[in-house]
């Protein structure tokens, strides 16, 4: 093949350099923020003149920040659970079903991933205003579930495609009802996919800001919304500390997922 990595020769060095550049470009702002969150300057000066943990102390002492973090966690957890449940049902019908329009349904369920988020946010907001869900936790969770759904469907459907249905059939001849077979055999067999779906869905909600701004109310604010609001009010290193924590949790969850996948593929 033309793009066989092993045959690229000297182009490999170019490719490696380019990849490193892209990675640096993507990661530098994050590194920058994390460094600033430990810097002693009140004015976010770079490079920091001294190091301190006081912004983190300030952050953890402020109930508004704690509340925002808890709200984020609660909404992300509920969105993750819902998205995994709906994702499971959707994946079964997408992978196993033989109905016309299956591809269409698949496309439809994955659109939130490609649809401009602002468009989605405005549409959902307008709709929720009308049916009285705007500014409610339920509305927030539903909106985030829709956004998270593709991130649940992709890993679950992939795992299900890789699972031989004969194994489920074997459980059925063994005497398990079709439901029992799915619960006791199929679900445990694709558990890594389900777990990935839960983590990705959680993260899709956890660091989402656009829809969250529309769904938020003064009493219902997630961490990214609070960060966004604070940035505009006063540019304090506390915001950098909050952002660093956000990134930290995201990173932890990604690492856990990667480790689990690695262990199960061995």
């Amino acid at each position, binding site marked *: 093949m033309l793009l066989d990595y092993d045959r690229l020769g000297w182009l490999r060095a170019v490719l490696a350099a380019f990849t490193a550049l892209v990675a640096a470009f993507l990661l530098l702002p994050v590194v920058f923020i994390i460094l600033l969150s430990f810097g002693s300057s009140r004015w976010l000066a770079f490079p920091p003149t001294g190091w301190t943990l006081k912004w983190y102390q300030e952050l953890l002492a402020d109930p508004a920040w704690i509340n925002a973090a808890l709200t984020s966690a609660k909404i992300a957890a509920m969105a993750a659970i819902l998205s995994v449940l709906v994702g499971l049902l959707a994946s079964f019908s997408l992978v196993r079903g033989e109905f016309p329009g299956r591809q269409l349904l698949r496309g439809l369920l994955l659109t939130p991933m490609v649809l401009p988020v602002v468009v989605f946010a405005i549409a959902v907001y307008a709709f929720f205003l009308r049916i009285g869900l705007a500014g409610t936790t339920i509305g927030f969770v539903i909106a985030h579930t829709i956004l998270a759904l593709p991130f649940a469907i992709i890993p679950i459907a992939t795992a299900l495609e890789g699972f031989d249905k004969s194994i489920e059939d074997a459980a059925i001849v063994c005497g398990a009802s079709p439901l029992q077979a799915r619960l006791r055999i199929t679900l445990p*067999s694709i558990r890594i996919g389900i777990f990935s779906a839960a983590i990705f869905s959680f993260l899709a909600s956890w660091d989402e800001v656009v829809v969250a701004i529309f769904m938020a109310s003064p009493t219902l604010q997630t961490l990214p919304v609070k960060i966004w609001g604070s940035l505009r009010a006063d540019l304090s290193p506390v915001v950098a500390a909050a952002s660093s924590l956000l990134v930290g949790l995201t990173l932890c969850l990604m690492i856990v997922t990667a480790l689990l996948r690695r262990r199960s593929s061995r």
Partner: protein
Amino acid sequence: MTRPFLSIRAVRKTFGAFVAVHDVTIDVPKGEFLTFLGPSGSGKSTTLYAIAGFQDPTSGDVLLEDKSLLAVPSHKRNIGMVFQRYTLFPHLSVAENVAFPLRVRRRPDGEVKRKVADMLALVRLEKFADRYPGALSGGQQQRVALARALAYDPPILLMDEPLSALDKKLRQEIQAEIRRIHRETGVTILYVTHDQEEALHLSDRIALFKEGRIEQIGTGEDLYLRPASEFVAGFIGNSNFLPAEHLETESGAATVRLADGSIVKGVKATHALSRGQTARLMVRPEAFRLTPVSGNASLAVEIVDTAFFGDRRRVVARTGSGDEIDVRPSSDAAEPAGADAAASRRIFFDPAQAFLFPA
């Protein structure tokens, strides 16, 4: 007549306009090892799935001890099945896999434990009880699958090409295991394979499938020595087919004229043929001899190649009309080597071991 144990009655299965199984009828006595043999796509699995309940037949019925199975959902049929694919539950250990059917039947713990131990002993995998399927070879996985399928003492065991993913040596080993297990448990087995040697080795009876129909059903000997059609003769064992013209038939013994003009009397005719009808004369490779016995017919050939295989020789010969013949005479003293390549000579066969089929 005693009632059959399992009765497959005029089972038919269509997919759209395509008929995968044409009114298949078979009665299976208790304890029999019956094999569905046939080329890929001939409807063997579909028939088996109708018994397992994964495919509802379009028409027909499946009766077990006179009760129809069709209204019973798969998981309540209490049938054992081993699949072509590896179907052990990947997240359960070998022992838990075998225990699974007993657990869903809510059998008491003590009984489950005892039964699992018995089953693992039956397939000789006691030492592997705590392994996970991923750490087993293909042959071991299929033996565990067999143990799992027998754990709940099913009246019937279905096996759909369970050895097709294994290499030849392992296949023969497990065939021997399957025979022993059949003998020890007395379970009624319906076995699907496309491998005629496997079918001959294992079965009490073989049902040979062709395009959704049963072409012939009988013991291996029946099919090999008394093939009902050219298809059966070609599928079971090796066969040579020589073009022939039918001259006359008298009480099952036919007279034919071969391509070289020679007349052969007393070949077996399984079909009614008219005078002058073109036909094909089937002779097994091992029915040919290099030295004549009285009453034998003979054929003028040119030797193309010879090879020695210990108990047999293999000689490739070509007739005057260009047909290649596979000849496998036994390599004992009565059959001297004297068959050099490129030599012209005669080879011999007993007409009573030749079968005439319509062309």
